[in-house]
């Protein structure tokens, strides 16, 4: 499947016009939402690193055996390890990819990249953000001032370009807009139409929602439209961008959801152990136990354990009002 680096404007507009953007209810299941994503599409993941990762939706995608997705994210972590091991993707676009500083370099990522089983396309963090932002704004490129002089830009070949400012004569980078086919974003709450509130760290999610051709929201809680309309200045993602809303409490576990639960640190230690010992077999065992085994998302949470769930929630609720 060939893919334009930058979606031509006429196509971008045509794709948007083709969608039903009227106010309508979109509540559905993880399984039905997974059906909205086709093999080979470019899927951008909301959140960052191990925060507000839409794990439940990815769990459904892996179970549905979706394949050849291009996956982009600000920072990739264990969710992308899982997508690689499950065969869901062979191409990840991000700025940083590992479980996290305290757990060392991801052996799963290393295995796939060093054996050339997959491609890790590396852009700087700000460049990832600006590429989504340009996509969100409906412009084909946006100027910036990093990545010059580095090998990160050299690795990108013709996808990396510089240009001269027509006003100042300064040399700047022209970052190509990124318009994913789908953005999957987990939020603390949204209404049945997809008007979403996001507490705390926003990461790149607002730009992601506007840049993507369609948005799938998973949410800790579905609230009434009336609730949303009482504080419209708290809405972060407007319903017009959204194709599906799935209520999935604890939908980021074992990652965190701001103000709701912190990462399941003991589980993350266990994950690091398993995948460091054997990034292939360890990962397949992990997927068998946590992805393919449980029949429902609640079953998956049971696998993590009630005590771990309660502990993550206790820690997660004490953000800054304590």
């Amino acid at each position, binding site marked *: 499947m060939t893919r334009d680096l930058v979606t031509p404007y006429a196509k971008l507009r045509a794709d948007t016009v083709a969608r039903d953007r009227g106010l309508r209810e979109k509540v559905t299941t993880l399984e039905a939402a997974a059906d909205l994503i086709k093999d080979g599409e470019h899927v951008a993941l909301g959140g*960052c*690193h*191990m*925060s507000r990762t839409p794990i439940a939706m990815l769990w459904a995608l892996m179970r549905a055996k979706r394949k050849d997705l291009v996956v982009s994210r*600000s*920072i990739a972590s264990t969710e992308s390890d899982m997508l690689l091991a499950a065969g869901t993707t062979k191409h990840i676009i*991000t*700025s*940083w*990819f590992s479980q*996290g*500083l*305290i757990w060392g*370099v*991801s052996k799963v*990522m*290393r295995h796939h*990249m*060093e054996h050339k089983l997959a491609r*890790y396309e*590396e*852009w*700087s*963090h*700000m*460049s990832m*953000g*600006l590429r*989504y*932002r340009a996509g969100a704004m409906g412009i084909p490129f946006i100027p*910036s*001032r*990093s*990545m*010059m*002089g*580095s*090998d*990160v830009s050299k*690795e990108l070949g013709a996808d990396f370009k*510089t240009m001269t400012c027509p006003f100042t004569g300064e*040399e*700047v*980078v022209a970052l190509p807009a990124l318009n994913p086919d789908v953005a999957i974003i987990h939020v603390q709450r949204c209404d049945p139409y997809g008007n979403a509130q996001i507490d*705390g*760290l*926003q*990461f*790149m*999610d*607002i*730009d992601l929602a506007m840049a993507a051709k369609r948005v799938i929201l998973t949410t800790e809680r579905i609230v009434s439209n009336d609730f949303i309309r009482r504080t419209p200045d708290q809405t972060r993602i407007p319903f017009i961008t959204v194709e599906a809303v799935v209520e999935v409490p604890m939908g980021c576990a074992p990652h*965190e959801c*701001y*103000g709701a639960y*912190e*990462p399941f*640190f003991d589980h993350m230690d266990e994950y690091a152990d398993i995948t460091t010992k054997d990034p292939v077999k360890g990962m397949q065992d992990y997927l068998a136990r946590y992805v393919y085994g449980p029949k429902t998302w609640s079953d998956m949470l049971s696998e993590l354990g009630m005590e771990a769930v309660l502990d993550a929630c206790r820690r997660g609720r004490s*953000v*800054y009002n304590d």
Partner: protein
Amino acid sequence: MTKHQPKGATFTASELLAINAARLMTDGQTVFAGIGVPLLAATLAQHHACPHLTILFEGGVIGPKIVPGELPPSTNEQRCTRRAAMVLPITDVLLLLQRGYVDLGFMGGAQIDRYGNLNSSFIGGPENPKVRLPGTGGGNDISSLTNMIVAMKHEKRRFVEKVDFITSPGWIKGRDSRAKSGLPQGGMWRVVTDLAVMGFHEETREMTVLAMQAGVTREKVQENTGFALRFADKVEVAEPPRREELETLHHLDPDRRFTA
């Protein structure tokens, strides 16, 4: 890690790095800090000489107050936002670098070379890497757009003649090659290790030893470096960690998750 034991005080290499880096900061500065030693150093500075230092996190945070014993495991985790002045999108906090609001960036790296270029992408180069490292994250942006402090362990395999891959640009090939690459602003300022504190020659931009940790010789520094170092006309001896600095670090990281 290596233990040094001057004057009865015990400290780890990470603690030594954090303390030396903290002393490089000036009150009132705005500092982009990574997790681990950088964050410890910035917080340590706030507790001593720099009460008005502002910390920025790549995850989208301005001015957090770190809760002792609850150091965040990532710049993108909710702990990073405790008592912060502002939480904002990632792209916007990184744009503060581009807008010129940041005085110092502060990070580590797997490899550094004579001109302060950092590699955190590939050991062995991109074609057939021996190790695929996590990648740039905000490192490229920070090092492209502001003045840099790097803290790392001083080992020959890390201090190399030429990095296998420039993830975060330092002075590139020295002299004016950085500005000519389109980066007229910022640049590598200091490298802090468990052996020395280094700067870069004003013209050639070669790494230059400015100070050495107490008890460390020129020979030892050179032995642990994969290229010929320059030494300043007058190489200082770094003041050993003070008891109150170590106490603050122990208070911040009582379980030594980041200072072991």
